[in-house]
Each structure stands twice: as C-alpha cells, then as structure tokens.
C-alpha cells in the first residue's frame, strides 16, 4: 500500500477546514482513497486544531501517526506537531505567523515558507484565499498538474460566482508553482488503477443520508456537538426531501416532538450527544412503553458531564443499553465507518418500526467528523420495512392498539386512517391503551413487550469479521474503532501473528454469533474508547465471560492501529 499523510494545523477560524476540504475533494477526484479526521477545540476562534488526511491507493479506514506533509497556519502547529513529521517529510508554513524560534525550528526540516494570505493579496485577491494558496502548495506534492484541483475549486465555489472561482484557481496555481519551484520533482503517492465514482463523506453525512434513504419525514433536535452535523444536514436538505426538521427548545422537546410525529405514522428521529442524550431518557422510556418507533442518534463525546465537547469517546455504551427505569425492548446499533453508518441508519428505522420500539444509533466524534472515500450508496439495498401496519378497513372500528399477539407485536393503525381509534399511553395499559391497575394485565403487557426483545435478539446483526479465521489473537470492538482494529489486525498478520478482528455493529442485544466466537481458542482482547470497559462489561453480563486483556483509551483522542498494537502485551506482539 502507498500512503501519504497530510496534516494541516492552525487556529479555529484560520481556514484549515477549508484547505482540508479542498484537498480531500481534489484528491478523491484525482483517484486516491482517503481517510481524514479532525481535531478541534470547544471554541470558535483560536486554540489549536488540525485536519489530517491520509491518501492511499486502496481504501483506508483509519489514520496514521507519521506525517508526510505538515501545513502550519500558526506557531503551535510547529511547536506541537513537528515531531510527528517523518524523516524526509515536508513542512509548509506561513512565515508571517511564525515567531523567530518556531521559524528556526521549521527550517530544520524539509521546509517551505509560504506567506499564504500575503501571496493571495499580492495577486490582488482577498486574504481569505490564502487557503487556496495552501491547498495549491500541497497539491504540488501530490499531482503533476492542476486540473483536478481547479475543477474542485470550481465546484466548491460555483455558487459564489466566476470571479471567486477564478481567484481561487489563480492563487492555488501560484502556491502550486512556488512549491514546484522550490522542491522540484518529488516521488508522488501511487494511485489506484480504476478508481471509478466514489463519495467522500463524514459519518455526519452518512447518517442523515441513511435516514433520508429510509424515508424519515420528521426530525426535531437541539444542537449539540458532535451530533449537530446530522441535524444541520437534515435541515439543509429538508425542503427538497420533504422532511421537517424543527429546532427544539431543548432535547426533551426534541424527542417528544419526534414521538408525537411518529405516533401519527411517519418515520421520525432526533440526534444529540452526552447530556442531551441523558435528557431524552424519560421519553425513550415512553416510546418503549407506548410502543412508538423512534430513532435516536447519539454522537458520543467524552463525559461525564460536559466533558470534552469536541473530542471522541465510546463512553455512552452502558448508558444507551441501560437508559430506562424499568425494562422495555430496544436495540443499540454502532456503525464502525461511513458506509456502515448509511446502511445501519436505514436499518435502524426498520427495527424501530418492525418492533415498535426505540432504536439508538451510537456514533462518536471520530466517526461523525472523519471523511472516508466510499463506493456510491446503493439505494436498492435499502429495503423499507414498516412493520405490521393495518389499513383503516382491516383494523375496523374495534381496533385495539395493544392487541395481545403471539409475537408481542400489535399491528399499528395510523390515527385518522380508519374508524378505529388509536389509544396510546405510557402509563401501564390494557389492549385498548386505557390505564389499568391490576396485576394480571400488567404482567401480560410486560410479557408482550418483552417478547419483542427476544425477537430483536434473535435477529441481531452478526459480528463483522476481518483477518485470520484460525486466529491466535482476536480484537473485539464496536463503533468507530472498526477501522483501527482492521488495520491493527492487518499489521499483526503482516508480522506473522494470526489475528482476527471482530466488529459489533449491533451492541444490544448482542448477537448469538458472538458467543461462538468467544469460544474460539484465540487470546481475546477488547478494544474500546472508555475507562471502565463498557463493552467488556456488556459481554460479561450476557455471556458470563472475561477477555484475556483490554485496550482502552479515554483521553478524548481516537485510536489507530499503532495505538492498539503497541498496547498488546509484549509476548503477543513479538511472539
């Protein structure tokens, strides 16, 4: 595999996301596969952020530590990130923003000083086009010519008019030319043979796209990082796709609005994070009791409390599984990458409607904000299963919302669609939906609801495997560690250790298939992004089982293959 890692560092508001976005689109256009992740602070201007892109000649699913090209928009990028640059790597910095010490430091490496904003201004363009200068400069290390970069700029700025497009192209060319001039020809990363059309998306794009593909009609949400991207995506495309996205006054209103909409018969969702997720617990429990489908995206960030709002963690797993006073059926899905995010999101709506229950989709900041190249999504793979729904005639006037059935699923009637009345309640109720006090009905109604949980479990998504079947070592994880685990497994296999990766796209209820895997003779490690080992605990509670070891991270940063492999016990790694 050929790889190239570009890291763009600077302050919030300096344009590093623009530079990154230009580059990742142009690079995809040019044919590379890529993975790009973002690291930013909970502030709007200043601080120290970075945007890191890994290009490769085949699909990649995670990030690497060693940097080939560092773009420094500020001094901190030099002082903090320089040590990550590989021997022979290139540093492109803006000399206008570096103090003398940092400049000296930068100059020790293979470095180029380009005054991005000044160059733009000297070319008669606004300062802000310094971003395109930087993009052009990096592009010189990637490509022979400017075609794809110019095309990307044209596409990205098309709504700003031709002058802006041309300005950007002009300054990008200048940046390109300067680097070419200073560094001459350098080896370029290999490209895949037949790349074909692809999408380049973040988790926060794929999740709402999955929802749209599944026919979501109503969303309500209250902004909270890192889930806000999902909300804004649905807002942006709502008019065209005929979806209402109503900003709520708080998360409690958000989920209750969605429940109200869902009750009438539309697919409805909300998205949130951390504290907002906690505030939704009571309503989730209402959805469980009243058997109203609802999909909740929870994009995890490090807790407890406000924690680190813009960082990543997998610390809400225990909570997502446990979030109710009292028992009711549910499912918790945990997509591991952008492609899975799309299809699982659609699946979540099917589960919610087939079992008339809440479904939680666990994302996290790392999945939400990281771009990956993926094959175009296949809408024909998105089957829409709306569960047991009866028409007005079928239902008749004697319709019972909570009719006792063999599988615990009572056919839904949409209110107003027939003579039957649809009575739903969160209080304990009888088949009609009216309130009860007696022990017998209570017990039957609990058993009816929990019968559905059994079905959900029987149909749980099986683990996704990679690596060696006859493994001596197994890495088990869920959610956004999928790519890191896959690459760790590859790394281990390449070192002669037969390793297998087990990714759990469904964490609750856990699939039966996992038990079989746990019985394999391999040494098993659980890899997860939290302090207490929440996945480990979940598996232990279900299968009365303990792993041979665990690899955890809880400093707010994502894992990658190196992080995992470095933490395997010595005997394993060098054995």
């Amino acid at each position: 595999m050929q790889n190239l890692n570009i890291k763009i560092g600077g302050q919030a508001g300096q344009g590093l996301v623009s530079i990154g976005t230009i580059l990742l689109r142009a690079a995809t256009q040019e044919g590379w596969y890529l993975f790009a992740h973002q690291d930013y602070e909970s502030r709007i201007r200043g601080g120290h952020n970075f945007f890191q892109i890994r290009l490769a000649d085949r699909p990649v699913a995670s990030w690497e530590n060693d940097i080939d090209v560092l773009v420094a928009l500020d001094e901190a990028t030099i002082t903090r990130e320089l040590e990550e640059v590989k021997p022979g790597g290139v540093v492109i910095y803006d000399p206008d923003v570096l103090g003398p010490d940092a400049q000296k430091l930068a100059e020790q490496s293979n470095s180029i000083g380009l005054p991005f904003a000044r160059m733009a201004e000297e070319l008669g363009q606004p300062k802000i086009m310094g971003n395109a200068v930087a993009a052009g400069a990096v592009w010189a290390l990637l490509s022979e010519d400017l075609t794809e970069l110019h095309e990307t700029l044209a596409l990205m700025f098309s709504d700003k008019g031709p002058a802006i497009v041309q300005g950007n192209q002009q300054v990008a060319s200048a940046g390109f030319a300067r680097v070419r001039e200073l560094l001459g020809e350098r080896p370029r990363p290999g490209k895949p043979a037949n790349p074909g059309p692809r999408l380049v998306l973040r988790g926060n794009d794929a999740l709402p796209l999955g929802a749209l593909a599944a026919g979501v009609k109503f969303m309500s949400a209250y902004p909270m990082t890192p889930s806000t991207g999902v909300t804004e995506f649905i807002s942006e495309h709502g008019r065209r796709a005929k979806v209402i996205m109503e900003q709520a006054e708080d998360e409690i209103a958000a989920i209750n609005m969605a429940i109200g909409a869902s009750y009438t018969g539309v697919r409805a969702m909300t998205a949130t994070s951390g504290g907002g997720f906690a505030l939704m617990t009571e309503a989730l429990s209402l959805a469980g009791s009243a058997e109203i489908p609802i999909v909740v995206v929870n994009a995890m960030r490090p807790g407890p409390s406000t924690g680190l709002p813009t960082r990543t963690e997998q610390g809400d797993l225990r909570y997502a599984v446990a979030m109710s006073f009292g028992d009711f059926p549910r499912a918790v899905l945990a997509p591991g990458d952008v492609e899975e995010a799309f299809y699982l999101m659609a699946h979540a709506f099917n589960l919610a409607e087939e079992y008339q229950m809440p479904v939680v989709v666990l994302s996290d900041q790392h999945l939400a904000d990281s771009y990956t190249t993926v094959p175009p999504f296949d809408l024909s793979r998105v089957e829409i299963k709306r569960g047991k729904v009866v028409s007005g005639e079928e239902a008749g006037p004697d319709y019972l919302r909570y009719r006792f059935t063999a599988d615990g699923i009572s056919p839904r009637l949409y209110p107003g669609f027939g003579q039957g009345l649809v009575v739903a309640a969160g209080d304990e109720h009888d088949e009609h939906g009216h309130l009860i006090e007696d022990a017998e009905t209570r017990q039957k109604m609990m058993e009816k609801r929990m019968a559905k949980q059994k079905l959900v479990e029987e149909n749980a998504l099986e683990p996704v495997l990679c690596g060696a079947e006859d493994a001596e070592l197994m890495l088990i994880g869920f959610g956004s560690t999928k790519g890191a685990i896959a690459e760790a497994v590859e790394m281990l296999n390449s070192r002669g250790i037969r390793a297998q990766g087990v990714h759990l796209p469904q964490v609750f209820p856990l699939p039966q298939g996992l038990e079989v895997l746990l019985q394999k003779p391999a040494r098993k490690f659980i890899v997860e992004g939290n302090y207490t080992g929440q996945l480990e605990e979940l598996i232990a509670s279900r299968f009365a089982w303990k792993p041979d070891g665990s690899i955890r991270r809880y400093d707010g940063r994502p894992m990658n293959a190196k992080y995992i492999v470095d933490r395997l016990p010595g005997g394993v790694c060098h054995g």
Partner: protein
Amino acid sequence: MANSGFVVCKETAWCPGCGNFGIVRALAKALDGLGLQPNEVLYVSGIGQAGKLPHYISGNVLNTLHGRTLPTATGAKLANGDLTVIAVGGDGDGYAEGGNHFLHAIRRNVNITYIVHDNQVFGLTKGQASPRSDRGMVTGTTPLGVYNEPFNPLATAITLNASFVARSYAGDQEHLARTIQAAIQHEGFALIDVLQPCVTFNKINTYQYFRERVYDLDQEEGYDRTDRQAAWARSWEWGDRIPIGIFYQIQRPTLDQHYADILIKPLVRQELDKSVVEEILDEFRIG
C-alpha cells in the same frame, strides 16, 4: 368507544364533584357541535388527574409524560395536520414541569388547542402547591405557605404573543364549550386556561369562590380582544371579579404555513421519493 359522536365515559378515576367532569362534558359538546368525528380528533395529554381526560372521551389518544404535552402535540400536528389536535393537561403539567414547552410552543404558533385544567394544585400527587397556587396556601411541601409569585398563564401567553388566549370555568359548561369551539376554529395556538375546582385538595379556589367572582369578558362592551396591552392589563384582574372569555386573539402565520413547501399534503400521506435521495447522493459523488 365508537366513531359516532363523542361519548363521555362514566367510569373515571376522578373524585366525585371534581371540576374535571365539567371540562370533559363541555369538550364532548364542543366537538359534537363542530361536527367532528372521534377518529378525526387526537387528544395529547401529560400526566396528572387532568392528563387522564383523553381516556374518558372518544377519540385518538396519546397520553405521554408529565409536562411533555405540548411538544408531543406539536410533533403530531406537524406530521398529520388533518387531525384536530387537542392538548390537555394540568397546571402542574403545563406550568411547572412543562413550563419551557409552554413558552416555545406559543412562539411556534402551531395550530392546536391547549386546554389547561387549572386547579391551582398538584392533584394526582396529593395536593402540593402548583405554580398557580395562591400565596399563603399551606400544602405538604409548603408548610410555611406558598411564597412564590403566582404564575399568570394568560399574561405570559399574551407576552409571548400567543394568537388565542382565553380563560373559562369548569362550572360553566356552556361558556367552556363555546370557548373550546372558538379555540379549535382559531388558526394557530389557542390556550384555554380553565378554572377547575379540585374538591379534594383546593379548599380556597372552590366552586363557590368562582361562582361569586367570574364574569364573562365576551359580553363586556367595548372590550377589544386584539388590543394586546389591554389584554395583558386585564389578565391581572384576580380578586372580587375574575374575567373569563377570550382575552386576546390575533392572526399570525402558523407553523405549518412556515413549512408550506414541505406540507403539500400531510407528512403521513407523503410517499418517499427515492429520486430526491439519489439526487442528493449524486451531489456527493466524485469521479
């Protein structure tokens, strides 16, 4: 309960003599009078004695959580505007636990009717103070007497520019039924705060108390219900005379009008158009 006429249940969990009976009867009368069918109506309620009302009258029911009446009703109305949505709950439900939703549902001007059973007390939990309790009222949680400034839902709603703000009285079913009809016919958010004697826990604001005090603003010569400032001022009258009637009514755009582009028909009757999703996906396609 079948779909012909609005039947009021005989079996309820309410205390004999409770003001809630007057409300459910007036509601049935109002709905019958409007020629609606039970399956066209959706009651959304929270938790409390008031919140049980939907179970005692024919119609569709969504009985949710304490305090969450309004967002749930808003979602339901946005998803199926064909339904006549009536939100109903207690003063604790609406003004204590649900206070935030009260503010913001009014700002949205969603086209629903909101009936608050205002018994000035938490009934179901056995008589604690509500935001509507009179100063000095001694309850299980206020042994020193209620201290807080009583919440004035009418003044607050008028301040938030609610498009329909009324008060009625459970002891006057005619007035209440008439007010409910006007509220349902109003395009936009309609609040009816209903004075509702709680015969068990509220020994201050009784039938007699109200009988001696209420007068009908609708009959008041020269009262202009589109005059916001006058309405706000009138809403403070609470003493020897207590006005009932429509305090304030205006026309302003409703939330579904804001979403008119999307709501070409009710959301629940719109099929998924996969080609639009393809179109959006295509915008992300590269190469």
